[in-house]
């Protein structure tokens, strides 16, 4: 199939339709608004439901209990508002896909690319002990491909799955080969689909008896342990690397160029790119950390994923960090400079 030149937000929207999206609930916020705008145009044509919510709080609660494939999308401020609803979804084990095109924060911040929602996406789904499964694409094609993966994971684990992009990924256009449409076979024996002859189905996250709530939590934690098999990551030029750069999403894209330039200059650099941020590829990072002499983490934040990298590296090698934030995007020369500094640090040691 010929690739189509497509904007990140629209590629995700079209991929979602082709993954069997039946309903979308949305609320405008830059830089993701093209995603609902595309679905407003295209989803009704394919028999789906596009419904505008009065707030992100409403949007996340509209997907609660939906037995069909459903999606919402937002950016940082809206993702914050959705946290309580996400906690309910996790607690009640209701699947959905949530796209967060991160922008500069905190507060209203700005509408430029950032990666400051890492903590919020990976560390908990709102309050309580729940987790989102989190996917972080670095190209429009991968955003498109991971959208389908997200729906499959959401169904498989009956858990919300987040696609964590950023303003750059959402807004940029790249050639994309769209996947063929599928009609997913789904087991929705849990969904409240209307009165029938069977026993009443109940969707709830309320357990007043501590024993029952502990049991629910154990089940969730067991699910997250099972989800470890979904870890995805990619290594680049790591075989003989002294310096391993760890970056995800658009940062990894920038870091790859810097790694190539470092190689041109004779510095043995490589790249680890986590694709699933939860579950985090801890084992992969640990293995790499055992082979290289120093790790450099780069993010469009003040340092969030770096904590997971440090935990994974577990003191094996020094872990350095370089971040730009507030909508500022690092450049390959900046990362190259950091790689060179890291390399000279280990040479001096």
């Amino acid at each position, binding site marked *: 199939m010929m690739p189509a030149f497509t904007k990140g937000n629209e590629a995700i929207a079209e991929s979602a339709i082709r993954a069997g999206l039946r309903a979308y609930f*949305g609320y*405008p916020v830059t830089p993701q608004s093209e995603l609902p*705008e595309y679905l407003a*145009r295209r989803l*009704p*044509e394919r028999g789906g439901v596009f419904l*505008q919510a009065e707030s992100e709080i409403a949007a996340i609660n509209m997907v609660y209990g939906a037995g069909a494939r459903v999606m919402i999308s937002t950016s940082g401020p809206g993702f914050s508002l959705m946290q309580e609803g996400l906690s309910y979804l996790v607690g009640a084990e209701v699947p959905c896909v949530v796209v967060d095109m991160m922008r500069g924060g905190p507060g*209203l911040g700005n509408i430029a690319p950032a990666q400051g929602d890492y903590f919020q996406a990976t560390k908990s789904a709102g309050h309580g002990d729940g987790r989102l499964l989190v996917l972080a694409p670095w190209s429009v094609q991968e955003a498109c491909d991971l959208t389908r993966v997200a729906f499959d994971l959401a169904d498989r684990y009956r858990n919300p799955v987040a696609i964590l992009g950023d303003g750059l990924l959402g807004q940029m256009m790249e050639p994309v080969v769209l996947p063929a449409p599928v009609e997913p076979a789904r087991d929705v024996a849990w969904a409240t689909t209307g009165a029938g002859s069977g026993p009443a189905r109940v969707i709830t996250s309320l357990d007043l008896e501590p024993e029952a709530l502990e049991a629910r939590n154990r089940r969730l934690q067991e699910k997250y342990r099972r989800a470890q098999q979904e870890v995805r990551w990619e290594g680049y030029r790591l075989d003989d690397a002294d310096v391993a750069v760890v970056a995800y999403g658009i940062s990894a894209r920038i870091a790859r160029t810097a790694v190539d330039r470092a190689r041109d200059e004779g510095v043995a650099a490589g790249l680890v790119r986590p694709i699933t941020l939860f579950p985090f590829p801890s084992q992969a990072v640990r293995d790499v950390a055992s082979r290289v002499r120093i790790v450099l983490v780069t993010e469009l934040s003040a340092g969030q994923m770096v904590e997971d990298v440090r935990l994974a590296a577990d003191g094996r090698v020094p872990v350095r960090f370089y971040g730009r934030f507030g909508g500022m995007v690092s450049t390959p020369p900046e990362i190259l400079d950091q790689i060179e500094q890291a390399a000279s640090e280990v040479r001096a040691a």
Partner: protein
Amino acid sequence: MDSPELATMPLPVLEPIKGVKKAPLEEYFTSGHRTCQGCESALVMKLMIKAAGPRTVVLGSTGCMYVANTTYYSTPWVVPWMHTQLGSSGSAAVGTAAGYRALMRKGKIKKEPINVISFCGDIGGADMGLSAISAALQHVDYNHLILLYDNESAANTDIQATGSTPYGAVTTFSPTGPAKRIFHTRWKKNTAAMLAAGHPECRYVATVCASYAVDFMNRVRRALTIGGPTFIHSFDPCPKGWDYDPMLSHELGELAVLTGIWPLFEVEDHTLRLYGKSKAIAEGRQKRLPVRDYLLKQGRFAHFTEDDIDYFQAKIDDMWTQWLIPGVLPFAAEVLNDTPPA
């Protein structure tokens, strides 16, 4: 009032403006904004603060009137302003008014009238922030004004529909197309009347349109001088969102009133008054213009068929002929005629 002290919280003295030539010359919303050509909401900000005067703190929840007025290190505001979360115009108003009251009560600042005006757009005020506004109107101890500037879309983020978008209008979230010719089938929320009816202790609620500038400023002055929380709903034509020539902003505001789509009314201490051209319409002195004159000047209604226009007209006719209080309260008069069994 919960203490005698509060009863003496100072209120500003702002006399009604007797005509456009008597309006204050001072501007407190000046150059430095980046609103679109023909932006009526910018005029609303300008008139609002002209009426309120310099002893005013302005709070703006997220929306085009916040973003366009405070970006890239510049601002047209001469008075203090503060940005607040999208749905928080009500809460921010209460918090600020409560803060001033406490400071004055403790003698930390001079006891003097300080206006607190919190503005919000339609998606911030009539949708996400509605519960906060409702709560704010219940806190009768605090003096503040919430002004909803309604350009009938989320104009800051690329013109998405809101609860204030009129029936059938094309927005980026409600496109017309082969699957759905009319996507946005919700009728516009009757926000001001809802808030007036639902908050009987709130002393002042009004609808305004900046096309009638003196009326507009006098409603702002009344809201600020009456005491307690107050609410004003302003109807703001938006060239970008409604798709019309920017020179028509003023005319479209007038047409919305003259067609009966936007009734001008105020509720002061439980007394409802239609005013201006809306009063003339209700009293039969002004014939309502057909809605066609208003709708077809705007690209967002360009897909309307004759049937759509007729439907829209019938709904507006209902407002003026069937509603218990024409243009304000959409209850059928049957309720009043109801005779309980003996």
